[in-house]
Structure formats: C-alpha cells, structure tokens
C-alpha cells in the first residue's frame, strides 16, 4: 500500500461519533490521518483548499454524515460529485437515517456507499473498521489529485 493513501476526511458535527471514529481507526496497526470538519461549508472549504484550508491535503476517502449544520450532507455530496477534480474521491455516507427514500436518493447523487450508523457502541466501532479495511485493503482507491487545485494569488 502506498503511504499517501491513508487520509480520511470525516464530516461530522457530533463529537461523540468523532471520538469513536478516531478510536476505531487508531486500533488499526497502520497509520491513518483523520481530518475532521464539523459542517458542510467547512467541508467544502477543506476540499477546495480555501480560506484556512489552503494547505489541506486531498483525502483518499470521505466519511459523510447527512445531518450537518450550515450545509447538509446532500448538498455536500452533490457538490463533490459535480466537481471534476473531487468526484473521484469515494464518499461513504454514514448516517442514522434509515428511510428507504433517502437511501435511493443518496445513491442517485452518486454516494459510493451508504451505511447506517449502528447505535450500539461495539457495532459502531466494528463498522468503522470494516470501512477502513474494505476501502484501504480490498478496493483500489483513485490516484491522487496532483498539486493544488487553485494556485495562490
């Protein structure tokens, strides 16, 4: 596995889930860098390397919650998947929502996969580990985006 293929962006406003995700990823022997943004606007700034995120790296995988302040997960997903530079990055939607309608809509917006967050703590950790294991050891991630998207003025 190539070293740079280990950056995960978690878009999540609930500090409890952030903590648990961090714990679950840490248990893996390999080093993963987890970046966290708490709302949709911040997420897009991070991905577009704008404002305070000019030095933010491009993540290899995005974990996206649907219910976010400022700009919700649907909007974030839509923007990522309509952006020629960003759309290659796999987006794993991780949410408590279980409405069937929601699920099809999320796939229509080209989420790479949809996962329901288990309420049970151990199960949640297990799910995060499965995501990490599947995407970083079984799947091939897209080649990295070269250089910065927007050159500094």
């Amino acid at each position, binding site marked *: 596995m190539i070293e740079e293929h280990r950056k995960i962006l978690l878009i999540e406003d609930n500090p409890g889930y952030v903590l648990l995700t961090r714990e679950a990823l840490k248990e893996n022997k390999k080093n993963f860098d987890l970046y966290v943004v708490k709302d949709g606007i911040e997420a897009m700034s991070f991905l577009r390397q704008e404002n305070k995120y000019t030095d933010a790296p491009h993540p290899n995988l995005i974990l996206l919650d649907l219910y976010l302040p400022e700009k919700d997960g649907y909007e974030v997903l839509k923007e990522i*998947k309509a952006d*020629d530079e960003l*759309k*290659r*990055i*796999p987006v794993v939607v991780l949410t408590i929502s*279980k409405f*069937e309608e929601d*699920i*099809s809509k*999320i*796939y*229509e917006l*080209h989420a*790479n*996969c*949809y*996962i*329901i967050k*288990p309420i049970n703590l151990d199960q949640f950790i297990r*799910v995060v580990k*499965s*995501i990490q294991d*599947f*995407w970083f050891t*079984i*799947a*091939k*991630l*897209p*080649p990295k985006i070269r250089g910065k998207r927007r050159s500094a003025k």
Partner: protein
Amino acid sequence: MNNNEIGNPIEILLVEDNPGDVRLTREALRDGKVKNNLSVAKDGVEALDFLHKKSKKYENAPRPDLILLDLNLPKKNGIEVLGEIKTDDELKHIPVVILTVSKAEEDILKAYNLYANCYIKKPVELTAFLKVVKSVENFWLTIVKLPTN
C-alpha cells in the same frame, strides 16, 4: 444493517465473460452469510439488455441490487456499460463494483469519474480471488445498506 430483512434474496448481476471467474464468484457467493441470487451476463450488450429487460429472454429479469462489472468485455466494454448505467435515471442508483484484472491508474480514474461505486483489482491467484469476492460480499451485503428497488 441487514439487506434482506424481509427475506428476499439479494439480486446480484455479474457481468463477466470468463467462465472460470464466473464459477469462482458463484462458489464464493454461495457460501455467503446473506441469501443471494446471482445472474450472469457475458458481455456488455447482454448486460444492458438484462438491465433494460430487452428481448424475450430478459423480460422477467430481476432488477439487480448490486452489479459486479468486469472491464474487458466483448461487444461493449465495461467502461461503456458503466457510463450507460450511471446516466440512466432508472438504473443509476444501483451500486456498481468494478472487478477487473486491470490496475492501470487510467482505468481506476475513469471508473471513479464515471461514478463506479468501487474499484477492485481481481487477484490472479485462486485463494486470493475467493477472499476478495467474500470481502465484497461481506462489505456490500452486510455492512452497506443497498438501495431498495
């Protein structure tokens, strides 16, 4: 989390022209935890006919819950099939897992840009191949929530 709570088997469409890979995939999926039904299309044209229920042969074809798509296919290649699925309002919600021998960056990038749900390089070695199919089965059928048709 379980995808077949009401007991219906998960419908999987495998688009693959190599009979050996078809057999191995079938075997790996048969032993899986989740009940599933595997249909096979041997080329890109057949795959799209199956999905569109075109011709008498496919009028009763089930709508797949998951598609496993090879890239090197006769008649119409996997990239074209993927492009057609992901621009079709009736089909684009169906997750497509690319399963191919190619590990060329160009193919990986093209597939993700056309909204493949994930890209997997088929191992050449038998046990490794079975392990990969089982991982796909485990992740996509038990961890992921698939869309309902």
